[in-house]
């Protein structure tokens, strides 16, 4: 999965938002809990529906790599009744004329019902969640 999204804010401001756990907890669709564990690691609970496969997933989000204020790499590992997810995501932040262009890439390995029943839909769901996330960041910028 890959895409871009443009936010009307300087890069440093966007970077700060992306590193604020409270903002992330508010902005990530479906997230019900995000608890810092130290060492750039968070425990997370998230509710996602992939077509008919709905479930709550418990897992861990780790910031594997960061180069402020340009690049951040996340690793996600979790599981729930419908299966397990292992994903990596990377965000690149470019400042262009006072705006920040975020280029994101992601790759996920899924098991269980999410794989066998949800695989046709998972790409679309992920893209929609990314869009919702960035729209929520826009709202955060406006606060």
């Amino acid at each position, binding site marked *: 999965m890959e895409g871009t999204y443009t936010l009307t804010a300087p890069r440093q401001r966007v970077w700060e938002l992306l590193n604020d756990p409270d903002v992330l907890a508010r902005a990530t669709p479906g997230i019900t809990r995000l608890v810092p564990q130290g060492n750039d690691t968070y425990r997370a609970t998230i509710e996602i529906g992939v077509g008919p496969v709905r479930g709550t997933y418990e897992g861990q989000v780790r910031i594997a790599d960061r180069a402020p204020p340009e690049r951040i790499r996340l690793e996600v590992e979790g599981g729930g009744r419908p299966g397990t997810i292992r994903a990596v995501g990377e965000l690149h932040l470019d400042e262009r004329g006072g705006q920040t262009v975020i280029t994101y890439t992601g790759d996920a390995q899924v*098991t269980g019902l999410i794989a*066998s029943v949800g695989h046709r839909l998972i790409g679309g769901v992920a893209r929609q969640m990314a869009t919702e996330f960035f729209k929520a960041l826009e709202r955060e910028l406006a606060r």
Partner: protein
Amino acid sequence: MVLSKALGARIPRREDPRLVTGTATYVDDIALPGMLHVALVRSPHAHARILDLDPAPARRAPGVVAVWTGDDVRDRCGPLPVGPRIRDMKVPRRYPLVVDGVVRHVGDPVAAVVATRPDLARDAADLVEVRYDPLPAVVDVEQAAAPGAPVIHPDLGSNVCYRLTFGEPVDGALARSDVVVSLRIVQQRLIPAAMETRGVVADPRGGELTVWTSTQIPHVVRTALAQMLGLPEHQVRVIAPEVGGGFGSKLDVYGEEALVAALALALGRPVKWVETRRENFLATVHGRGHVEYVDLGARRDGSLLALRVRVLADLGAYSQLLTPGVPTNTGLMACGCYRIPQAFAEVTGVFTTLPPTDAYRGAGRPEATFLIERAMDVLAARLGMDPAELRRRNFIPPEAFPYRTPTGATYDTGDYAAALDRALQMVDYAALREEQRRLREQGRYLGIGISSYVEITGLGAAAGLPGGRWESATVRVDPTGSVVVLTGSSPHGQGEETTFAQIVSDRLGVAVDDVRVVHGDTRAVPYGVGTFGSRTTPVGGSAVYLACQRVRDKAVRLAAHLLEASPADIVWDGARLAVRGSPDRALSFAEVARAAYKGTRLPASEEPGLEATAVFASAESVFPFGTHVCVVEVDPDTGQVRILRYVAVDDCGVVLNPLLVAGQVHGGVVQGLAQALWEEAVFDGQGQLLTASLADYAVPRATQVPTMELAHTVTPTPHNPLGAKGVGEAGTIGATPAVVNAVLDALAPAGIEHLDMPLTPRKIWEALHAGRRR
């Protein structure tokens, strides 16, 4: 002497009323007092090490009675049986739950939760916490066989289970051929998807273990359970109640059968497990799954010179009952209907981190028929010959039987050209080719596909199984003259309650309605081998025939004694046994039966009663054959295939009941064309099955099935008293290459020589457009 008109008659299946009115009893219909329910915890990974498995939260859940892991099973149950004994074969031991801490396919069971209700068991199964460390998945059979591949069973050294060859190398003959056709063929994995999933109920009470299981082989399961659980076999009773389809997927001994029995014994209560549809996709065996390399050499005039076949068979992660043996049928039958002077086949069984494969309708023979029939069509195109003519030129002629192929099969009888000619006449082949030429000029894609097949039926079981190439039957006449047949065959849709009654009617003169056929209960029927490999009629039916002969001989002897005549002078017209020339001196069959049980007026040499048990054993398999012709039109804008005609001419020897034969051919053809056009088990690179539901796996619906025009030629076999060959798998074997050949014949003007199955609209559309760019 034929005593009724029943044999060969179009008698509707007697088992159907209970099936279509919902009064049949399947495993899931069985409910016993105090019965517990099992849910299995299965691996979500194709290959992973179990880091931690914590059953404690599940044990605390409401209604949970027990949670078992591999350690609980290993103490109570031996490994699952593997039937074939192939030289130098390496097979891993498998237990009902993973015992060595490594899961090897998605769906591999790691724990069993037992609760008072099925929903509570499933909820608690979700609470079993398992942490895995994923290992590399091995999904592709060629990569699995290559050096350096991750080894799935480290103790076996490599992923190669066995390598078996048939015939002698043919490199010289191929080099001398004017034309050599070389193909790489993928036989995609298929999912049997029987309408009834598997299910097991075990009851340990009453001094014996009773196990109801949805199986094709109740006696094999009984012997295997006794051995695995260390029980005396006389304390184990296995019942196959109504079985809602199997197609080979229930020709197996499954871990769940032993697990449920072991749980019942340990807990002292009846225990039930019914497979969910999703489990059925992951935990019941799959079929096919080959990559094949074919080289077919011929002279310019079309006469075949040599065949070389290399089969890489994807066995999946473990060996189920017949897993390694199934692909060997492909090597054995690779020559098809043709006199090929030299042939060589090499079959390599390879482990992958996918669910195990095993017998699936045809079991190795559809793969053989497909590869030779596909190669024949490509050869015909290369030579510029008509594919029917190329086949006719190379058929084994009728006078050459019995015929031994270079790969080692001995065909009993056949008249392959007769079946081909009949099929061609039914479609009006010459006119069709003319129409095809005309439509091609208009840019339309009409295709005509021919498939001439020969296959094996009446196969025996594998070397490591308790039964062999035989079947048993008891024919028991009641004192009032009605008849009960106890058969070792175990039907799951074949209709032997009808056909076996027809055999009895033919032999003893009783009405079909006066015969009851009992099967599937190991306490009721004599030890039997089961129902698979199209063996029910040729082997099981022949046992019924032989038992009837014994009853008939005794009835004649008793009638002769009672009528004070010589047995040679007794005339039996179906209604009465009379003295030749004195029609007034006669007894009905029921009167003879009554006298036999009364026992007071019998000759000194005769025991009272009127019943006989027979076992029919034959060293020889029988080889049905036929030709299927399929006519399709491909829409170049959508890639959609429309079947315009489907003609099947099948020769299964003597036909016992044309309605049932037609039913078998119909169902078989549907399964065969489903492989050609729609069905495929699709895995991602991590070994996740992406088609694990009936929404994603394309089992055909009734609206997708074409009208079929059926006919038969009749070439009886000398190897059994009925002269009959099996027909349960013939439709599947004939159909797949007929449909694929038709589609590729349609696409020939676009320069497309071969496409792998399934021939989906997308695949066809992409090929057509790639061809246009060229």
